[in-house]
C-alpha cells in the first residue's frame, strides 16, 4: 500500500489522498483574518449595530393593505393623526408596511400604570383606524409590538453575557477533551466568527434583533462543530503519523476533513437558502446571519484554529494520551 508520496521534501499525497498545503498560505490567511476583524471592529465602532425593537424598545405596527399604498402618503396620514416622527417602510411585499412610531408613544404605553386609561388604549387599533379612513381598500392589522426601554436594556446585557458564558464553557470543554492549545484555537475561531458576523451587520446596517442574536449563538455552535471535527483529526494524526512536521500533519488533517467540511457547509447552506428565500420577512435577517456565519465558520475552522495551533507550536508531546501521565504519577514514590 503506497501510503505517502513526497515531492520536494513535502508530503503531497497521504493514504491515497491528495494533501493540499493549506498552511503554506497561513500568513496570508492570518493577515486576511486580522484585516477582516479590524474592518469589522471599525464598522462596529463607527456605525454601531442597528439594534432592532427587541433591544431598543419602541413601537412598531405591521399592516397589510388590500391595495398597495404610497409610503409618502401613509406617512403624511400618520403625521396628520398626531404621530409626528413616524417612519414607514415596505415590509416583504408592496402591500405590507412596517410603521415605527416615535418613542413618546412607547413611553406612554409602558410607563403609565396598567390602571390608567392611557395604557389600556390599543395603539395598533388606533393606527389601523387612521389608515383605513384614508384607504380605498381594507387595511389589515398584522402585528403590533410595543417594547419598553427597560426590557431592551436587559436583553442586551443578557445577550452579551450569554455569549461570553457560551465561549467560556466551550473553552473549558475543549481544554478538557483535547488540550489547552486547541481550546485557544477553537475560541479564537469562534470570536473571529462572531466579530465578523456582527461587523457584517454593522457595515450593512441591518436590523439586529433577538432572532439575529439567536443566529449568532447558533453560529458559535456550528463553527465549533467544524472546528472540533478538524481538531479531532489533527489530534489523531499527531498520534498516528510518524516522521512528519507539525505543518504537514495539519495539512494532512485539513485535507482529509476538507470533503466533509464542504459537504456539511453545503447542506447547511442549502437549508439556509430555503429559509432565506421562503421563510418570510420575520426571519430574513436570522437566516442571513447564519449564512454569513456558516461561510465564515467554514473558513475559520480551516484557517483560524489550525493557524493558532501552528502559532502556539503544537507538538506530538502535547497530544500524548493523558493516560500515560496518570500512570507516571502512580509510579512516583
Amino acid at each position, binding site marked *: 500500500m503506497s501510503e505517502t508520496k513526497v515531492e520536494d521534501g513535502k508530503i503531497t499525497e497521504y493514504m491515497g489522498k491528495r494533501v493540499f498545503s493549506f498552511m503554506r498560505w497561513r500568513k496570508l490567511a492570518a493577515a486576511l483574518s486580522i484585516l477582516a476583524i479590524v474592518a469589522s471592529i471599525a464598522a462596529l465602532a463607527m456605525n454601531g449595530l442597528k439594534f432592532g425593537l427587541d433591544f431598543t424598545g419602541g413601537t412598531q405596527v405591521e399592516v397589510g393593505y388590500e391595495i398597495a399604498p404610497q409610503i409618502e402618503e401613509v406617512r403624511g396620514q400618520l403625521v396628520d393623526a398626531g404621530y409626528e416622527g413616524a417612519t414607514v417602510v415596505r415590509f416583504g411585499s408592496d402591500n405590507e408596511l412596517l410603521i415605527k412610531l416615535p418613542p413618546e408613544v412607547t413611553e406612554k404605553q409602558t410607563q403609565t400604570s396598567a390602571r390608567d386609561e392611557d395604557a389600556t388604549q390599543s395603539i395598533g387599533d388606533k393606527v389601523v383606524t387612521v389608515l383605513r379612513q384614508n384607504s380605498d381598500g381594507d387595511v389589515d392589522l398584522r402585528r403590533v409590538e410595543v417594547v*419598553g426601554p427597560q426590557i431592551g436594556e436587559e436583553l442586551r446585557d443578557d445577550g452579551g453575557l450569554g455569549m461570553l458564558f457560551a465561549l467560556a464553557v466551550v473553552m473549558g*470543554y475543549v481544554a478538557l477533551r483535547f488540550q489547552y492549545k486547541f481550546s485557544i484555537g477553537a475560541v479564537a475561531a469562534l470570536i473571529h466568527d462572531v466579530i465578523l458576523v456582527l461587523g457584517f451587520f454593522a457595515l450593512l446596517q441591518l436590523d439586529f434583533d433577538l432572532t439575529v442574536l439567536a443566529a449568532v449563538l447558533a453560529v458559535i455552535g456550528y463553527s465549533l462543530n467544524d472546528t472540533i471535527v478538524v481538531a479531532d483529526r489533527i489530534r489523531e494524526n499527531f498520534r498516528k503519523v510518524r516522521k512528519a512536521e507539525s505543518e504537514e500533519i495539519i495539512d494532512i488533517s485539513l485535507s482529509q476533513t476538507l470533503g466533509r467540511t464542504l459537504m456539511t457547509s453545503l447542506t447547511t447552506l*442549502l437549508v439556509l437558502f430555503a429559509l432565506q428565500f421562503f421563510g418570510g420577512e420575520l426571519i430574513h435577517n436570522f437566516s442571513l446571519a447564519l449564512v454569513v456565519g456558516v461561510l465564515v465558520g467554514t473558513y475559520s475552522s480551516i484557517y483560524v484554529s489550525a493557524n493558532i495551533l501552528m502559532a502556539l507550536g503544537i507538538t506530538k508531546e502535547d497530544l500524548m494520551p493523558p493516560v500515560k501521565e496518570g500512570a507516571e504519577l502512580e509510579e512516583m514514590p
Partner: protein
Amino acid sequence: MNRYPIWKYLLILIVVALGFLYAAPNLYKPDPAVQISGQSSAMEIGESVLEEAQEALDEAGIEYFGGEVGEKAVLLRLDSVEDQLPAKRVIQESLGHSDYVVALNLASTTPEWLADLGASPMKLGLDLAGGVHFLMEVDTATIVRTNMEGYVQDVKAKLRAADARYRSVQLEDDREIVARFRTGELRNKAVSTMRKEFPELQITEAGRGDNLEVRATLSEQEVKQLEDYAVTQNLTTLRNRVNELGVAEPIVQRQGRNRIVVELPGVQDTAEAKRIIGKTANLEYRMEARPDTLVTNKEYFEYRNEQQRQAYGGAWLERKVIIKGDRVTNARVGYDESGLPQVNITLDARGGELMHRATWKNVGRRMGTLFIESRFEPETVVDDQGNETVVQKRTDVKKIISLATVQSALGRQFRITGLDSAAEAQELALLLRAGALAAPMYFVEERVIGPSLGADNIQVGVKSVQIGLLAVLVFMLLFYRVFGLAANIALAVNLVLLVAVMSILGATLTLPGIAGIVLTVGMAVDANVLIFSRIREELRNGMPPQTAISAGFDNAYSTIVDANITTLIVAVILYAIGSGPVQGFAVTLSIGILTSMFSAIMGTRALINLFYGGRRVQKLWI
C-alpha cells in the same frame, strides 16, 4: 460482520414506531369551535346548555357538528373559521351574559385511540396561532413603600403607648424608618419596644447629642417575601380577570423576579383585554344601613353565596364607601385561639386610617364587604354613516361576600371571624385578595399577531422546511447513493422523532422554532457525512468493504459525539439566557441534536447493516 443483533433492530423499530405514533396527532387539523363554560368554576354545564346553544346556532343558520359535553365546558365544532365570531355572539346572546363564558377554541381532531395513548399535537406559539402577548411589570417598590408607610403609623402608636416620646418618625428613601429622640433614655425605651413589637425589623442606632436616631429597615429576605407576595397576588388576580375574557387556553405566568407574562391566543381586541387586565378595585367596604337610614342613602344587595342568599336574601348597606379593594394589601386565612377559622386582612396605611375613622364610633354595627364582578356584553352600535360596530358594554354586579359585626375600632389590620368552616374562610380570603392588585403594574411589552400573519407564518415555515429538506435529500442521494439513501431515511425519521418529542414534552412551536428544525435538517446529515467520508477514506486505503464500513462508523463516533455535545452546550445556554423567540429556537435545536444522534448513528447503521451486513460485497455504492 456488520450485523446488528435482533434486539437492536427491535429497539430501533420500537423507537421509530413510537415516534410515528406520537407525531401523528400533528397531521390532524383542529376544527374551529366555540367553547361554553360557567362564570364560576362550581357551575354545572350540561346537556341543556348544549341544546340551547345548538338551537341558537340553528336559528342563525350557522353550520355546526359534534357537540360535546365535557367536565366543565361544552364544545361545539364549526365548519369554518369565519363562523366562529358570529357563533360566539349568537350563543352568548341566547345564554345570557351573567352565567356563561363563550370562547373561541380549536377542537382537537386527534382520533380517540391516539388521545388515549397520551398523544397530542404540538402547541402553536402566538406567532403562528395569532393572539396577544403582554409582559407586565409589577411595581414592587410601591408595595415596599406602602408597607413601610404602614409601619410608620404602627411604630408611632406603639411608641406612644410605651411612653417613648419621639421628636419625629419618618420614612426615608421609601424603605427606612427613622425615629428621632432627644435623650438616650427615651431612645433605649424605644429600641426595646420596637424590638419586642416588630421582631421582623432590623434596628440600628445612630445620631448624637440631642438628635438620637433609631433606624429600622426590613431585611432583604423580608423585602423579597413582600415582592414575592405582590407578584403572586397579582398573578392570581390576573388569572381571575383573564378567565373573564373567556379565552380558551390563556397563559399567565411569572417571569423573573417581578414580571408576569400574559398570552391570549386568538384574542384580537387588545384594548378590551388590556382594560380587563388593568382594572382594579372590585371590592367595597360599607357599613350596614341603620333601620332609619333614608332610602336615598342606602342600597340593597344580595349575598353572593348561594346558601347565604337562601337563608338571608340580602342586606341594606349605606351608599357611602369606606374603602375600595385597592387598599387591601393582603387577606389570609388564620385560626383564632380556639381554633376557629378567620380571615386576617391587612390594609395599606391610608386604608387603615379611613377604616379607623369609619369604625371607631360604629362599634357594634355590621360592616359589609361587596364583591364586584364586571361583565362585558357586546352591544351593536350604529354610527352616523350607518355602519354597525359591536362595542363591549360594561355592567357591574355587586354582591355581599361578608357581613360582620364590628367588635372594636378597626385599623390597618383586622379580622373577620364567625365563619362556619375553613373552606368558607378560604373562599372569602381568595375573593378579598382577588379584588385587588397588591402592587401597580405596567405593560412593559405588548405584541399582537394578527390571524392572517399567523397563518402566513405557518405557511412559509412549512414551505421552507419542505424545500430545505428536499434539497438536502437530493444532494445526499447524488453524493452518497445507497448510503445517501440510508442517510435520507434516517433524516426523515429524525424529523418525525423531533416532532414526536416536542409533542410529548408539550413544547410550543414558534417560527424561530421552525427555523431551528430547518437548521437541524441541514446539520443532522453532518454525522452521516462524517461517517461516509471516513468509509470512503478507508476504502481508498484499500480496506475491504465490510471492514471499511465498520471502521468508518467506529472512527467517526467520538468526533460526532464531541461535535454534538459542544453544540448542545450552546443550545442549552441559548435557552437559559433567551426569552420567547430565542427559547423556541433553542428547544428545537437541542431536541434536534439529540434525535439526530440517534437516527444518524444507530438508524443509519441499522439500514447499512441491512443492505450490506453479512454478505460478500465487492463494491460499495458510496
